[in-house]
Each structure stands twice: as structure tokens, then as C-alpha cells.
């Protein structure tokens, strides 16, 4: 997993609530057996028409916005457990998703892939979306080490929460699998001492 400490970037606003994983990556694109290449179908049916032509009014096609940060409406990533959603966002070049609420499984999947789900309040989210829409050149600084989202144009630093273990993983590029495999002895001991086993 790639390491993450500080990211400075402009952002892409997507002010829609309850964006589900079927919008992020429709099921018909889940047939690949590798992790690569899902980015080209990110937001497929919002981004492209039936003939595969870009829809001019979609936020990723207008040419107005760019950057490695996606700022999206409340309850981002609801629906299916497909990790392909996190892969698609990452593969399309985003390193951070900012929203005021994330669905559980998506959040875990993002963290397992070095994609930071950054939760802010509804109020901050509304201000951020308005700011970016008004000035697409607005730069945001995501400082994971200090757990701060800096908006230089506001002269404001907004702190955010993240699980301490997950933060360490992101900063160092570690993942759970190494940790768990190292617990083998404890796991075997647990298995041999269970009062009821299946």
C-alpha cells in the first residue's frame, strides 16, 4: 500500500447524497479478476452516455475541476461491499474522499487501499462544496499526521478523526494482513481453547 502523509491538491465537487457503489462502479464492470483498470469506469453511467461518449455536464467532464480530492455528499459509498469502488476511485487518481458521512464497508475498503475517507461536518461540507464550485482553483491541504484539513483561502484548519491504528497503517503503508498473519500463535491458541466450536 502506498504511504500517505500530506496531500495538497485542488478538488472535484460531487454534491449528491447517498452515492451508492453501483454509481461508483456498476456491477457489469466487476468481471475483471485483477485490481487494475477500474478507474476508466468510475461513475460510468453519470460520466458516459450509452454510446460511451462523455456527458458534457458531468463534473469530471466539464474541464472546470481537477485534483486528487473528491468532495461528495452525505452517506458516500452506501450499498454493496465491492472493493472495486475504492479501487476505481483510487485508479482514477483520487487519494482522498471528503464527505460528511461514509457507509461502513466502503470506509473500510478505502482505508485498506490507501484511499483516505475524510469525514467533516455537514456544515463544513456545504461550505467546501460552495467554495470549490465558486473557485475550482481552491487548494486543500490534507495533513494526516496532524489530522487536519487545511483550507488556506479560509485561513482555517479543520481537524478530523481517524482510528489510530488505521492512521499508522496509512502513514507507513502497512496493511491488516501482515498484522493478522503475525497473530498466528494467538489464533491457534484461541482455536484450541474455545468452549464451543463449529
Amino acid at each position, binding site marked *: 500500500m502506498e504511504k500517505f502523509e500530506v496531500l495538497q491538491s485542488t478538488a472535484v465537487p460531487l454534491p*449528491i447524497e447517498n452515492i451508492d457503489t453501483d454509481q461508483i462502479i456498476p456491477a457489469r464492470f466487476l468481471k475483471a479478476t485483477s485490481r487494475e483498470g477500474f478507474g476508466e469506469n468510475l461513475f460510468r*453511467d453519470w460520466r458516459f452516455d*450509452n454510446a460511451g461518449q462523455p456527458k458534457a455536464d458531468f463534473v469530471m467532464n466539464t474541464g472546470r475541476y481537477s485534483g486528487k480530492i473528491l468532495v461528495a455528499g452525505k452517506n458516500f459509498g452506501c450499498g454493496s461491499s465491492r472493493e472495486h469502488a475504492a479501487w476505481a476511485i483510487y485508479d482514477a487518481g483520487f487519494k482522498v474522499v471528503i464527505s460528511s*458521512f461514509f457507509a461502513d464497508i466502503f470506509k473500510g*475498503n478505502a482505508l485498506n487501499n490507501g484511499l483516505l475517507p475524510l469525514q467533516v461536518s455537514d456544515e463544513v461540507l456545504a461550505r467546501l462544496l460552495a467554495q470549490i464550485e465558486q473557485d475550482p482553483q481552491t487548494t486543500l491541504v490534507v495533513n494526516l499526521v496532524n489530522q487536519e484539513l487545511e483550507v488556506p483561502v479560509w485561513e482555517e484548519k479543520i481537524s478530523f478523526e481517524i482510528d489510530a491504528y488505521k492512521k499508522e497503517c496509512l502513514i507507513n503503508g502497512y496493511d491488516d494482513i501482515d*498484522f493478522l498473519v503475525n497473530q498466528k500463535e494467538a489464533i491457534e491458541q484461541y482455536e484450541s481453547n474455545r468452549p464451543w466450536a463449529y
Partner: protein
Amino acid sequence: MAKTLLDKIWDAHVVKSIPGGLDVFYIDRHLIHEVTSPQAFDEIEARGLPLFRKEQIVATADHNVPTKNQHLPIQEPLSRFQVDKLTENCAKHNIELYGLGHEKQGIVHVMGPELGITQPGMTIVCGDSHTSTHGAFGAIAFGIGTSQVAQVMASQCLLLSKPKSMRITVDGDVRPGVTAKDIILYVISKLGTGGATGYFVEYAGSAFRNLSMEGRMTVCNMSIEMGARGGMIAPDQTTFDYLNGREFAPKGERWDQAVAYWSTLFTEEGAAFDKELTFDAADIAPMITFGTNPGMGMAIDALIPTEVPVSEQASYSKSLQYMGFQPGESLLGKEIQYVFIGSCTNSRIEDLRQVARFVQGKKKAPHVEAIIVPGSKQVEKQAIEEGIDKVLAEAGFELREPGCSACLAMNEDKIPAGAYCVSTSNRNFEGRQGPGSRTLLASPLVAAITAVEGKIVDITQYLN
């Protein structure tokens, strides 16, 4: 301190707690399928890790399989490759696979319970969000991402923080025509699509207690549609009667020991939940959804709501525009082109029986295409034994072969753009059943009546 059902099962599966509040959490059963497992196999192979407990993994092919001519090679090359990859991976790692054509094949959440793989008190995971289904047996069951699939393959454990607990109590008798699906669609309409995010839900009260295991599975299945990673119902005599004699259920003396243990799995008097909600069963009507998330549901004869919070207005308008509906409008009389009866929510034998009972001696409306996809080979076999296949055929319904089918439209079973489909599945997201498709979620009973009438009707007048 009094413990909840969740506490009891959770605590029994903690290998160790690590500083910062995470638990190394043990998994009893791991179900895998063709779509979310290939990258996990690649990952453990790339790291040179062996499968830690392969005998605790069961595989099936369901998401991406055709529902016609399953005896022939899969036509679509990418789908065939993905299903072949599962077969190859299972053979290489010596994992039990109920693949396409196998007598035990089926939708993973139909297959596990009907074979007795799913048991009370277990922890069960699968790379699929509807793994919450198995909670109907009083198990901790939840969907995981592919990185976690690899973690379980490598260690039989996950690193998790214990979820918050919510109890949803529905007491009283339901009205005629109200099924398990209506109860859960009602609850989701009250909580919204993110209302239970971060929680595990325990369903309590007589409305759930009176349901069959099939009905309880329908309820727990849709827990994720309000954001809850899992839902559960304490095991009772209904659970034990369902499991007794199933292939992988304990037998003989072991069965008695199991029932004795399972009987301890309930929430103790006075145990505290992080959140408690109570509804009255008598308030629940046959339900239907009108929007593009499962929280956008209402009584079938109600009017589409006009009042929504300011912050949600843009998303709400976008949703209704996609569906071609207006705020304040009734759905009664709306013409429907497709009816889909299937998915891990409603494709069990009880669902098929209910449809057959209603359509017996009737015909579907000529303009409607009505497809029924059984949840498994076992369900299909039983339907044929009971003559349900003939009843459906005479009514003009097409009985297909098992799989996830038009619930997520990964295979060729798709609803065309702009068409309306009354579906017994679990998600009405934009394009879920095919690009541009418009889904209205409902119970198998509502779906059957809609197919016959060709339009949305107030079902209460059909119930005598």
C-alpha cells in the same frame, strides 16, 4: 452486566484485543463467490501465504452466471473467465465448491442456510454486503471487502472495532398482505439509507418472532440497506426446527449439545443498546419504493412525499426525475413492463409458493415480462417437486435457473432503459438492474399481483 445477543457472540470470538480498541476477531465460516474472491487469491499467492483454514471456506458461483442453459459453457467470455477462475482457485487450494450445475449451487445467502452451513452463534463473512442475511439464525454475519477476504483466507480473522448496538422492536400482528419484505421496507423507510450505519441491529418483538426462517432471512438481508453491517434475530424453536436434519447441521448427541448452547443466545433482561427503536406492526401496509434508494419506500396506496429537508431536495428531485415520478403522485395505476422475482432477499421456496398460490389459474398481463429466478438448485428442485413450475408456466411466468440475475444485472438478465420493473430484490439504485432501468422494490406477493394486473394496484382488494 446484562449482555445483548451481539455481546455474547462477539465476546466469544475475540482472539485478543489490541490497544486502540480493535479486536482480532475470529471467523467461523467464510463464504466466497466468483466476483469478490479472485483478487484475494492473487494477494495471498503474491505474498506466499497458505490458506489458514480452508475447511472453513465454502464457495459457489452465483453473481455472474447465466440463468438459462446452465448445462452449456457460459457464452459471455469475461463471465466465463471469472467463473472458471473460481473453479481453478478452489481446485488449487482444495476448497469445497458448489459451482455451476452442482446440485447444491445457489445464491450464496440461500445456499448457506438451506444446507445448514449457517448456524446460531457463528461468525460468518462473505465478500457481499447481503451476508447480513445469515443473522436470521442468531449469527454475527456481515459483508467484507476483497482485502478482508484475503485477510480471512490468511488468518481466519479480521481486525475490527465492535459495532454499536441497535434494537428494533416491532410488536403486534401484521395486516393481511403484509409480509417480511413489507416489514423491513417499512423500517428502512423510517430510518433512511444511512440510519443504521455503524450499528448491528437486533430485531425483536412478535412481528419478527412470528416469521418463518425464510421471512427472518428477508428481514436480516436488508439490514445493510439502512447502513447496518449486520442484523440478527435470537434463535428459537423456529430456528432449531429449520436446521434439524439439514446436511451440515450437527447430528445426534452433538445436535443436543448445540441446541443447549444456542438456547443461551438471547439478549438478557436489562441489557443496554446504544439505540432502541419501536414500531407498531399494525401501522405497516404492503410497501413499494418510488425512488432510487431503498429508504425511499411507502405504503403502496400512499402518495409520493412532497416534503423533504432542504439539504436533501436536490438529491430527491434527481431521484424522482430518474424514476419519471412527481412528488405528491400516487403509483396506483402505473403500468409496469417487467416483474422480477428472485435475489438473496426473496427467492426461497416460501417466496415461490406464495407467488404460485396467487397466480394459480390466472395469467400475467400480456405486456409484462415476468421472470422468476430460484435462489438455488435445491429451491428449483423443490419447486418442481411441488408442481410450482407448472403453475408458473401456465400463468406465463418464466422460471429460470438459479443465480443473482437481474438483482444486479451482471449477467445478461437486464431491464431495458426507461422500463419499470417491480422487483423482489433489495436495491433500487439507478441502473442497478441495467443502465437506465427503473426499479420498484416490493414483496413477492405485490410482484405477483402486479404481473397479473400489468400495473401497480392496491393489493388489499385481492386478498380474499
